[in-house]
């Protein structure tokens, strides 16, 4: 190694270190900005209602009113709502992920008549805001199929492919798996379903976790549909329970925010568990056309 090259390497190392420090500073800076509104919500959850509106606004609550959380838990039946939410989310996640995988597989690997038409229809369905089909669907579920005050209208749609975005994601993943893998299996006499279950699914398991996470978060925050389909308060979900703090003309924001802080904990835990798979998932297989 020449002296010049050695020098270049050393200066590169030094440059890298400065860059890494700068990067870290920048990350911390942006992380503080990103976390600030969350802190704002949290500090509000510990304040009295008068303190929330006080000027100048306090960054840190005067008294840390953890009693707000006790009060919240009296009204906000966290465990019950969590259980109800899980009753919707667990079957939806399982069914949604599975059917999205089936559909994604068909679009990525199989040749059949009408493929591009069906694919186009699939893409087209992404263009419809959920609110648009709310009324026709509501009429269908209630008058047509007789579901009222039931979780089925919320769950059953996930037995139908889990949404076009998720099918799209799975398709992209499967396409990035080398075809040689399943061709080899075909020669060994494996059928298409065998290939799907024993080759494709293990390879895209991380991607399936991604889809499950998306479905989880989507359902977790989907107030509108839950509000329309669920009537009785015993069946309330986390999202519905949260709106319930606004009583008649009354809004107790510190309790609402305490409930909020409680309610997003499961979402974060889910993310932390899924994070490894989430990031690695896309990395392993690539999100390429």
């Amino acid at each position, binding site marked *: 190694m020449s002296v010049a090259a050695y020098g270049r390497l050393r200066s590169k190392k030094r440059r890298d270190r400065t860059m*890494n420090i700068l990067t870290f500073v920048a*990350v911390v800076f942006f992380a503080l900005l990103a976390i600030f509104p969350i802190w704002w919500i949290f500090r509000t959850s510990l304040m009295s209602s008068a303190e929330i509106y006080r000027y*100048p606004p306090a960054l840190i609550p005067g008294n840390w009113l953890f009693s707000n959380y006790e009060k919240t838990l009296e009204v906000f039946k966290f465990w019950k709502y969590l259980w109800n939410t899980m009753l919707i989310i667990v079957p939806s996640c399982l069914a949604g992920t599975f059917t999205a995988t089936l559909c994604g597989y068909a679009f990525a690997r199989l040749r059949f008549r009408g493929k591009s038409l069906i694919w186009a*229809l699939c893409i087209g369905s992404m263009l419809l805001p959920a609110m648009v089909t709310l009324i026709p669907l509501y009429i269908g579920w209630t008058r047509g199929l007789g579901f009222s005050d039931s979780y089925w209208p919320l769950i059953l749609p996930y037995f*139908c492919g889990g949404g076009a975005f998720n099918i799209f994601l799975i398709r992209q993943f499967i396409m990035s798996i080398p075809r040689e893998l399943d061709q080899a299996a075909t020669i060994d006499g494996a059928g*298409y379903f065998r290939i799907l279950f024993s080759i494709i699914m293990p390879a895209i398991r991380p991607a399936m976790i991604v889809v499950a996470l998306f479905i989880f978060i989507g359902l977790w925050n989907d*107030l509108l549909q839950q509000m329309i389909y669920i009537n009785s308060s015993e069946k309330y979900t986390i999202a519905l329970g949260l709106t319930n703090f606004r009583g008649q003309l009354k809004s107790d924001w510190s309790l*609402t925010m305490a409930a909020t802080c409680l309610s997003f904990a499961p979402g974060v835990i889910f993310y932390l568990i899924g994070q490894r798979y989430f*990031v690695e998932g896309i990395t392993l297989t690539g999100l390429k*056309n």
Partner: protein
Amino acid sequence: MEAVNKLRKRRSRIYSSEARVAYICLIPAFVGLIFLTYLPLLGVLGISLTNWTGLKSPEFIGIDNYIKIFTTDPYIKDSIIATIYFAFLSVAGSMIYSLFIALLLNRKIPARGFFRAVFYVPYVLPAVAIYVGWSWLYEGNFGFFNYLLSELGLNKILFIADSSYVIPSLSLISVWLAGNLIVIFLAGLQNVPGVYHEAAEMDGANGWQRFRHITLPCMTPIIFYNLLLSLIANLQVVTPALALTNGGPGNSSRFLTYLMYDQAFVNYRIGYASATTVIIFVILAVFTLVLFKTSNLWIYNEGGDDK
């Protein structure tokens, strides 16, 4: 000759069994597309030709609703402008922000997992809380941001109470919410083959050049996916108006989907709201089409078409 026929026969048999499997796999999607998307969409199209209020029986009135929307509706023009303006700012902002943060998080920094979670959390939060929290920051007289401004001796900004600031203010929230884009970008960045970077570095390419000529081209498929995701989500924006601004001040944040919500659920004009819906659908379709059409101009493909 016979061999060829046999081969063809066999191929078509394979092909048909392949198709059969495909159709079986697609049964859930078929059911979903028919019953959850296109039949309801046709329902909406049908309702849009009536004066249905949701309460009493509808009457067929042809395309009157559409005529009204384009001639006398006091909101639609402002609404289209607000929606497109918001979508433009939010899509551009969140694409740049999330790519930038992903680039930062892709470097070797301590506590990477923690920081990833920090940027992702806003996406997990329930919408109601987010917007109420931000409304206190933005409040025009005594909000936190205005407190900072007045401490710095600057004039107050009314943020969401001022028709010229409301859209940028709401877009900022939507950029902040783009945690899912960051995670997808991050994964994409890790997928850029390291050998390319090493080779380029050997050739003396600097950081920007490597980003411009290696990272960016390799990322185009992911940029496309995120762009699509973000465009569709932001053109369908409704929550900030529902939770925060009620479409105001004036019509400056009366987004199309909010307009539709207001017509359908506040003023009981479901027929009319359905016509608005059809217009929303057409606008979204146009933008998506343009995105797909132009995508092959800039997507760097390692081979193979998009099928």
